[in-house]
């Protein structure tokens, strides 16, 4: 990401090649195309190999960053991926979607004077290299312990737990409600940011290690947590994500043409509706599209709409650019692709026709007032500033709450007032014996890597429980 605004320096960061904005804005191929070996090694030697590396402190799963980068510099790509796997089961994913600028790269010493080492790009390179040229040799698995673990949800935290515990010799089964594993990596993050083939291979890697993956199992409906224990599981990890879409709750929200980002992205990504009618699931083709919200999910939705052929795509957000929660790189990519930002703008109602279809929305201009509870300046409506925006498709990307499907069927697992599972910060233990939880269902909507960090902690705690006791 930090390619933009680069200052001239002696030892510049090696930029990862990207598809041209005009070209990529109309296709679903991945935007950055990857380093060559030469580029990777050139970038790897920029690492100072610090004795006390700040980058490692900045990584939620503590990857040995100078270690794997040094191996790339020496040309030992197999060594590099093994080094990564020791701490991170999903390097191809993390190299692509982690917010490195506020984690590892944000603490890189090289970045103090110029641009930080491109740690994310190098992580991606090592994983991609292994996928393309690797031996396929698996890391060693500990002898079988005979203990059975059920992992509920196959998103980033579930996959991390499964990967860690399978290596420790436990018998792991992943239960997924959808028909394909991967959770948000499959239904949420678009193909052009994270090719689904990569997620499938990461899951395949776990399968080859011995993890079982059962799709179409909705825990809370098909089977309850108590029934899992009756079936002989010794421990259960709940990593079901934050799957309850928030809406604006303004008049007209049920007009045809207003979709939650969850629905829009699930149609596009999981159901591959961008290939309709070659696949059977349709997706609304907006001509003038408005996306409400300014996080990464909003950027993904807007960029998907552009790729589906929209004439205009506008992001409507009630605060200013400073407060936009999306990664700067994602905002930058979106703007390059022609997406307009309507900042300090708040929709007040949707407009529709007699067929119940969306035709536009009424908005108010906002200005920033005093800071609110979140520390951000509160947007205040400018009186008399109403105006209409024409649109035939609106994607609501204003966040997700905790989906109550599983938790409401598990009354002895305590929740907080927002419906998130109460879990110990260090271990992920819930109030129900033998059950751990982590990721968005505990923290509320956050990042892939934080979910993985929680998975790592829970896996350690589950291992202790299975070998030592609760």
């Amino acid at each position, binding site marked *: 990401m930090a390619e933009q605004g680069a200052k001239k320096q002696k030892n510049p960061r090696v930029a990862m090649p990207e598809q041209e904005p005009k070209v990529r804005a109309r296709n679903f191929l991945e935007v950055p195309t990857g380093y060559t070996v030469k580029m990777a090694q050139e970038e790897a030697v920029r690492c100072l190999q610090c004795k006390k590396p700040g980058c490692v402190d900045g990584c939620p799963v503590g990857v040995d960053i100078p270690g794997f980068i040094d191996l790339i510099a020496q040309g030992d790509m197999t060594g590099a991926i093994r080094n990564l796997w020791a701490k991170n089961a999903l390097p191809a994913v993390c190299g692509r979607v982690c917010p490195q600028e506020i984690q590892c790269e944000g603490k890189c010493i090289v970045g103090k004077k110029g641009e930080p080492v491109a740690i994310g790009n190098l992580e991606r390179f090592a994983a991609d290299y292994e996928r393309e040229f690797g031996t396929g040799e698996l890391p060693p698995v500990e002898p079988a312990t005979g203990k059975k673990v059920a992992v509920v949800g196959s998103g980033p935290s579930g996959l991390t737990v499964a990967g860690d515990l399978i290596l420790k010799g436990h018998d792991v089964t992943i239960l997924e*409600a*959808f*028909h394909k594993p991967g959770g948000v990596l499959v239904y949420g993050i678009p193909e052009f940011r994270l090719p689904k083939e990569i997620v499938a291979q990461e899951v395949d890697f776990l399968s080859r290690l011995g993890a079982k993956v059962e*799709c*179409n*199992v*909705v825990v809370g*409906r*098909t*089977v309850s947590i108590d029934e899992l224990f009756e079936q002989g599981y010794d421990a259960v990890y709940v990593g079901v994500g934050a*799957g*309850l*879409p928030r*809406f604006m709750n303004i008049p007209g*929200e*049920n007009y*045809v*043409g207003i*979709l*939650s980002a*969850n*629905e829009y992205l*699930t*149609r596009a990504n999981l*159901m*591959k509706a961008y*290939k*309709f*009618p*070659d*696949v*059977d*699931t*349709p997706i*609304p083709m907006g001509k003038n599209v408005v996306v409400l919200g300014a996080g990464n999910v909003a950027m993904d939705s807007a960029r998907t709409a552009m790729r589906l052929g929209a004439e205009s795509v506008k992001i409507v957000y009630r605060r200013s650019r400073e407060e936009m929660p999306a990664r700067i790189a994602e905002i930058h990519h979106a703007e390059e692709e022609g997406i307009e930002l309507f900042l300090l703008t708040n929709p007040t109602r949707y407009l529709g026709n007699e*067929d*119940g*279809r969306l035709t536009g929305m009424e908005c108010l201009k906002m200005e920033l007032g005093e800071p609110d509870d979140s520390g951000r300046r509160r947007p205040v409506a400018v009186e008399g500033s109403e105006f209409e925006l024409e649109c035939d498709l609106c994607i609501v990307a204003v966040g997700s709450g905790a*989906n*109550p*499907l599983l938790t409401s069927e598990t009354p002895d697992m305590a929740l907080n007032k927002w419906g998130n599972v109460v879990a110990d910060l260090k271990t992920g233990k819930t109030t129900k014996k033998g059950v751990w939880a982590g990721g968005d269902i505990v923290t509320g909507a956050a990042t892939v890597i934080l979910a993985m960090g929680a998975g790592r902690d829970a896996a350690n705690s589950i291992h202790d429980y299975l070998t030592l006791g609760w």
Partner: protein
Amino acid sequence: MFKIVRREELSEGTVVLNEIEAPQIAKKALPGQFVILKSGEDGERIPLTMADTDKEKGTITIIYMVVGKSTELFKTLQVGDGYEDVIGPLGKPTHLEKVGKVVCVGGGTGVAVLHPITRALKQIGNDVTCIIGARNKGLLMLEDQMREASHDLRICTDDGSYGHHGFVTDVLADVLAGGDIKEVVAIGPVPMMKAVSNMTREYNVPTLVSLNPIMVDGTGMCGGCRVSVGGETKFACVDGPEFDGHLVDFDELNLRLRAYLDDEKNCHRDFCTIRDAQ
């Protein structure tokens, strides 16, 4: 794969019954709940309320009307073939209670969904009158099963080819006028459920309807199935599929069901053109 163990064509081949091996779902399913089915890799996820379950055999039964490409694809599946994915049981089960005189009203394939509910209402001791309708005699379904499941079965056809000549609401009006009806369950096309609800509202008889809006995941994640109930937005997949018919905004539901109408029509037409050319 979820194997089909029994297949029947009903209503002159416009409706198909599949009994499917799905032991985990059969074990847990209760009347009123639904499943989501997908026939192949590129298939659409289609929600269908279960028409029956057999815990011992580990099977569930679905009955669907062939209306578009996805159901045309379902129709090609024979005994021994299977669905790639079946997910469930989803939604809340029907609230079953002994209340006295109950009327169950069904139209079209809604009769299939109504059947297990009717049977359960009778089993727990209600006095059950059943009114089922179809466009004509040939399209009427599950007549014998509905007679078995109720105390009194009334039949209506739009063209008068069988039973009462007219709509289910004509008969319902008579039954309601007879008095003492404690509850009505109405399952069928949206206009039918709306008409029934409007009628029972006048008599102040609590009325349950089962909705089948467009949805993707069926677990409360996409919000595509939102319906207005008493001025509040509900997700049919997790809050329903059954709601108080007196509170449902049927007009909005009807418009939302038409969201992909053009896509569906084109897709179906192309499918039929290719199939018929072969």
